[in-house]
């Protein structure tokens, strides 16, 4: 069984970068796949990789990470303007961030419009989630 944990943006909005990254990583280390509303800041994404590496052990093998984000090139001027205002008022809550434990998630393939998440085979039958 694969467990997904949804993290709404308001749950991480008020947190410092370190607390935000640690909160997400804590969920992943419980063998759950995080689906977070919005995205981390660029620096926080790098911090997430760095902290993940610090935590690697024989039990925790790391993470798979993917961000799906609206393709701004496909938005018209009004949509882009709305996005700018929404980001300024509410934070960067556009898009989705998916983080899963590498022991469960084999790979996440994303193109701008969809994410495909492949889980590791636990038996002879291939297990694929979409």
């Amino acid at each position, binding site marked *: 069984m694969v467990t997904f944990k949804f993290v709404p943006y308001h749950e991480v909005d008020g947190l410092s970068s370190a607390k935000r990254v640690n909160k997400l990583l804590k969920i992943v280390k419980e063998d759950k796949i995080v689906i977070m509303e919005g995205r981390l800041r*660029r*620096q926080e994404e790098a911090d997430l*990789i760095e902290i993940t*590496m610090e935590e*690697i052990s*024989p039990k925790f*093998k*790391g993470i*798979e990470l993917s961000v799906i984000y609206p393709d701004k090139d496909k938005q018209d001027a009004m949509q882009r303007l709305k996005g700018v205002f929404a980001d300024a008022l509410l934070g960067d809550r556009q898009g989705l961030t998916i983080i899963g434990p590498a022991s469960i998630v084999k790979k996440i393939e994303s*193109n701008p419009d969809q994410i495909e998440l492949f889980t590791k085979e636990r038996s002879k039958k291939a297990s694929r989630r979409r």
Partner: protein
Amino acid sequence: MSSVSHIAHETREIKIKEQVNIKNKRGKELTFSLVDTPGISTKIDYEDFIKKGLKKTEAKKRAKEATKGVIDSIKWLDDMDSVVVVLDATKDPYSQVNITIIGNLQARNIPVLIAANKVDLKKANIEAVKAAFPQYKIVGISAKYGKNVEEFYEQLFALAK
């Protein structure tokens, strides 16, 4: 600077070469310090090294060194004047690691040149790399056969301007 291996994470520590000198076709010289960093990854599993033939203790040691190498690579991003990001042109360029690292360099206003390596292989898709990072200059190279190295040097000159 680093050697090639069929086992991942062959480069596990930062290697620095000072006073590297290259010359372009017009005889112009460029001198710089080269910092070769380990590849960045979000996961490292010592069992993968065992599958490649390493013993358990050796595999665990390699995994530990590899994790430290990734941490060091990320820390070094802050200290670079320019960065050459080497991508494997046979793989999907949209990996989140690529996007995160290049995004971080962009946020720090660090000039970036992307070297799409392994263009000697049929599977290489340089157009996909160009489509993924249209804002950057991309040079297809084959480090193994020295293919397109002249063009790579030319772009290094442009990057260092």
